[in-house]
């Protein structure tokens, strides 16, 4: 395989709050290659959004990237080294804030946010906002940028783009606004687009339209995508490879087909089992027990052990790093679960433990008391 476009190594982002340190992203690694759509899937609180803002170094205070490496096309977006005083400090080749702004954000990596209603500035015209971003990131003159903006609006299916160019965001429906945001991302002709739950707020029919449009345009422009979502159906529909996040970690990574048909991690399996299906009637749902613990005080060992039906004592003690479980020659399929032999920590000999999932008081109780 060629060099990855984007490579993330052991990325850690933490929030320093009054109540303690929230380890929102805790050592995730993944690659994105040219022309593919990589999924980042997980429930609320898994740290997906923090992970994506970390990629652009846009984490707001009190959050901070505290460790790891982000490399994009050979440039170091983030990287630390040990300073003279033993404290980590940014490496020399790490891009400065100004370089990030001028070379990376928008120009190389664009982002589509989740909330189309809030992301556009209410007091400027839609076209004006689009034009500004094109001007900044493609070195076009104002007139050329406007032409390009109108062309892009047409491309994403905005009717009568010439006249809508001068309208304000509140005159657009939610689906239309999301199209505008997609137009912004594409118009800057970046190599990578991060789509942060772009269809979550939309109706299914609109979501369908937008996903179809994105797949078409992705082929046309050969842009890579990181597609962040909580919806396994969307993953199944558009992603090539998938990373599943749970509580700040990537617990499984594989090609999309393998994720659904050769599921390795119990969390992924549980997530799939808990979903009602539109194409067949499921009479009994099998929900994941309990709720996701807070990232401020994650469970010891495997973070999923408190809700895992396969949990054993060793799960409470050993924290598994994701390992490749695929056979040689097969595409990578990694999972972070000690029940696989590759981990060699004596899962089979370990005694099953009682968790919410394996017994105990009825479901869904007290995240506050989950870990005593």
């Amino acid at each position, binding site marked *: 395989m060629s060099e990855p476009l984007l490579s993330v190594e052991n990325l850690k982002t933490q929030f320093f709050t009054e109540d303690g340190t929230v380890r929102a992203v805790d050592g995730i690694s993944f690659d994105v290659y040219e022309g593919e759509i990589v999924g980042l899937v997980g429930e609320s609180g898994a740290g997906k959004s923090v992970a994506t803002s970390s990629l652009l170094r846009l984490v707001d205070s009190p959050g901070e990237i505290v460790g790891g490496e982000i490399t994009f096309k050979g440039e170091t977006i983030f990287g630390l080294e040990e300073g003279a005083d033993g404290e980590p400090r940014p490496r020399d080749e790490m891009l400065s804030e100004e370089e990030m*702004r001028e070379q990376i954000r928008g120009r190389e990596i664009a982002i589509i946010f989740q909330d189309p209603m809030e992301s556009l500035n209410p007091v400027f015209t839609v076209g004006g906002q689009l034009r*500004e971003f094109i001007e900044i990131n493609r070195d076009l003159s104002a007139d050329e940028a406007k032409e390009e903006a109108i062309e892009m609006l047409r491309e994403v299916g905005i009717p009568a783009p010439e006249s809508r160019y001068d309208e304000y965001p509140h*005159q657009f429906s939610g689906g239309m606004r999301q199209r505008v*945001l997609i137009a912004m991302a594409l118009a800057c002709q970046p190599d990578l687009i991060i789509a942060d739950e772009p269809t979550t707020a939309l109706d299914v029919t609109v979501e369908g339209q937008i996903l179809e449009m994105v797949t078409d345009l992705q082929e046309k422009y050969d842009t890579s995508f990181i597609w962040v979502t909580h919806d396994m159906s969307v993953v199944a529909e558009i992603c090539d490879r998938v990373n599943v996040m749970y509580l700040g970690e990537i617990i499984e990574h594989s090609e999309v087909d393998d994720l659904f048909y050769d599921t390795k991690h119990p969390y992924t399996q549980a997530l799939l089992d808990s979903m009602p299906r539109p194409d067949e009637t499921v009479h009994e749902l099998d929900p994941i027990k309990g709720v996701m613990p807070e990232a401020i005080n994650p469970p010891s060992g495997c973070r999923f052990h408190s809700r895992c039906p396969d949990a054993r004592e060793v799960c409470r003690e050993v924290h598994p790093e994701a390992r490749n479980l695929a056979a040689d020659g097969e595409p990578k399929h990694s999972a972070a679960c000690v029940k696989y032999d590759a981990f060699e920590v004596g899962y089979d000999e370990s005694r099953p433990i009682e968790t919410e999932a394996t017994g105990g008081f009825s479901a869904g109780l007290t995240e506050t008391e989950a870990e005593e």
Partner: protein
Amino acid sequence: MGLLRYTLWRLAQSIPVLIGIITITFFLANQIPGDPVEIMLGPTPAQEQVEAIQARYGLDRPAHERFLTYLSGVASGDLGHSIYYDRPVLEMILLRLPVTLYLTVSAFLFAIVTAIPLGVISAKRRNKPADHVSRIVSLIGVSTPSFWIGLMLIIIFAFYLGWFPARGLPLPWADPADIRGAETQLQVIRTSLHHLAMPMVALGTLQMAQITRIERSSMVESLQGEYVKLARAYGVSESKIVRKHAFQVAQLPVITIIGLGLSTALGGAVLTETVFEIQGMGRLIITAINNQDYELIMGTTFMFGVAFVVGVIVTDVAYAYIDPRVAYGDE
């Protein structure tokens, strides 16, 4: 709806309010104890004189009749006759209003020009020294009586340092012949500005402080907006985000506050005019009250209401100009 139609619509909306203002002032003026005739003619007037005066001012007719007469008078631009000055009320007002407007508008300009940068810097450097200084300044500003600031300014800058004159406010467009020591129009303007400085600061400080406070919190909120995040993600420079993306949205609550601050400022003008002995609307209403000049009281009060309503319409239109959601219908 376009901006023009929105403006017309706001003007139309203000008519019932103006009628309401007239009603209130008429009601209050009627409650005033004491006999104006007595004030005019002394304690023992001749009977026919009294009747003549009463007939002239319609004092012999019942209240509701006088109200209707007054209302139709206002509609046709007749605010009645001042007993004290023995001149039409409108004439007195037109004589005094320009000074008050000159003072109030200048005070607002002073407030806006100082407050907006202060608030923006404060928001940008939140919880840093610049922010603390700006917050303390604005806290003192909202807590200080404007007339006391006037007194202090006079003591320091007029009496001790002698930099500014302590009383009076000539208009910049006054005839040079009327202004002592001025021969050309330019000198008149200089004299006028020289006189303006202290009352403007005294009256504008409260507005400055209020605008600073709201500008700060509004900018802080705007800077946390999703659209700011988007602009950052597309490589827009931080200074442009502050100047353009966050700033324009943040001005909406500021404009609202400016509109509402007009009420305080016009009231404050009464005090400021008293402190600096400026012959404006404020002194006029106090004179009218001290002399129980009914129609002048009503006229001046009404005029204060009109000034406020017009000011609010101006700010509303400014709001609509910035926020397209107002004039072009909401979502």
